[in-house]
């Protein structure tokens, strides 16, 4: 089976997420977690001026969803880069847990030789690790899937659409008028403007701290709603 060329970049991003997930907990990601994790990676990517492939999501009742992600995962399973660890059919769909295979690891190691891919891998790994960190957050309820979902629900772009009950609505993560995009721009402008008063840190570290602020924002908003 062959992947279409346009899907290669998408496949890489899935592999990066699963590669990082392997060092945490059970080393797997569920269908739902993978969707939400890649959504957050894309929504917050302007912090580091990284453009990821998954830019188009649809608002579903259980959060933002991209059919492309699921199609690509299915391809990756078919060519042996990703393994299905658990599968269960449920009413109206299925549950599955995925783990990266040894061959998948090798592919990641080769991909990150390219600086642009190394950047993307770093970013997705960082988002994945932060998500796993917040599993320890006091007040976040349910299993890990639920916790990721709770954080993603607080993403301002998705939250706005959800509040208006705009389901099956297209979310374009590269839309500069999007709420999350605008918030990131405002924060970047603020930090740039007051750079002399903010601790002297390099560009990469600044992106990490800004990303961490956004995660804290998602978490605190969740606590407030609770």
């Amino acid at each position, binding site marked *: 089976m062959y992947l279409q060329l346009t899907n290669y970049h998408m496949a890489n991003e899935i592999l990066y997420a699963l590669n990082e997930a392997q060092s945490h907990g059970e080393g797997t990601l569920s269908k739902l977690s993978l969707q939400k994790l890649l959504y957050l990676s894309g929504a917050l990517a302007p912090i580091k001026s990284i453009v990821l492939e998954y830019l188009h999501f649809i608002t579903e009742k259980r959060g933002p969803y991209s059919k492309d992600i699921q199609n690509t995962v299915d391809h990756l399973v078919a060519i042996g880069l990703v393994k299905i660890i658990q599968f269960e059919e449920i009413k109206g769909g299925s549950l599955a847990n995925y783990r990266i295979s040894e061959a998948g690891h090798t592919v990641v190691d080769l991909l990150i030789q390219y600086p642009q891919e190394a950047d993307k891998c770093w970013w997705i790994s960082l988002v994945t690790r932060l998500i796993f960190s917040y599993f320890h957050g*006091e007040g976040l309820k349910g299993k890990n899937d639920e916790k990721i979902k709770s954080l993603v629900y607080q993403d301002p772009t998705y939250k706005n659409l959800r509040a208006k009950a705009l389901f099956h609505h297209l979310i374009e993560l590269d839309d500069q008028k999007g709420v999350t995009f605008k918030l990131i721009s405002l924060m970047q402008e603020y930090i740039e403007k007051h750079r002399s008063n903010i601790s002297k840190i390099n560009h990469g570290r600044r992106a990490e701290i800004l990303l961490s602020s956004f995660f804290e924002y998602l978490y605190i908003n969740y606590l407030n709603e609770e």
Partner: protein
Amino acid sequence: MDDFQKLLNIFHKTTLQKLLNADSTLDVPKATSFYLRLEKCLMSSGYYDHSEMGPILLVLDTANEGTGSDMLSSDNMAQFLKSGLSKKCNVIFLHYDGMKIDRDDREDLLIENPVDACKFSSDSRMNVFFVVKNELNIFSHGEFLDCIPNLHSHNKAKKISDASLPVSEYKKLLNKHYKERICKDILMNFWQNKGGRILVAAPEDIFGKDLGYFLNENIADGFVDIECYNAWTSNRTDIRVLKYEDQKIYIFEVKWLGKSMSYKRSTTEYNDDRADVGIVQLNDYLGAEPKAICGVLVIYDARKDDIDIKWNVNIQRDARIETPVRFYLISESASERAKRVVREYKYKQKTDDN
């Protein structure tokens, strides 16, 4: 409050962000996980039920791997405190994952106060978390970072979202602090002898720290410079609020009047001239700070009589100094106050009848 302002509050005010900003060598996700687990552990019954066995100093040692048990689990923390070990050595070295790092050279180390905790942080070049009952003080490489006076009443969600007043409304905020924290006896430890109206030694540390923390939580458009909580390691006693938008500064100087007594029974008494000292200090601070647009002297008055201050008219005031705000400290208990009101009411009724 809009989302941008919320984010600014998070960026400047949450303990985790302060920690990450202060120490650029920290791994962001690992430090996040460590701090979230630490908070959870200190709020668990495992810690709370045995917190009288403290204080304890938790040291984040990122260079060494842990070999002992996971001290950020509620059960292990309870076991440690119950064992009495904290009275022999209360310094615990932990890796990011909460695992204890056994250090033979530190087996008899006892750190009993924030000053020593700060010094330890400075000497070891590490991030340390000093916990006394429900109070958590955090130091990074010898610098004071944050203080959470009460972990159980600390609500970071509220801190970010309900900070509803701009700093320009400082009078309302000072009144709110006085009514909610001082009059309602939430801030309790400033009287040495309440009936005799005698304060503890150096009460300005208590008032200043609490007011600084309160302002930080309740100001929507700025943040409090952390130096103000740092009365034990710095000579500066003022509270500085920096506005996000234009970085303009509001300076609050806290003074007290009346009598204070140390545990060795040495007394200090301050009268009107102490308020004048506050004005002189404000003049100095404002003179040295071109970005400052407002200076306010806040006076907590423990004198016997609730009377206005007689100011020294010869002291020139910087034009940015606003009218000082004086709060008379009420030493009557709620029941005494109720009895007095009833007595006065009865007396009034009697005289009206006559």
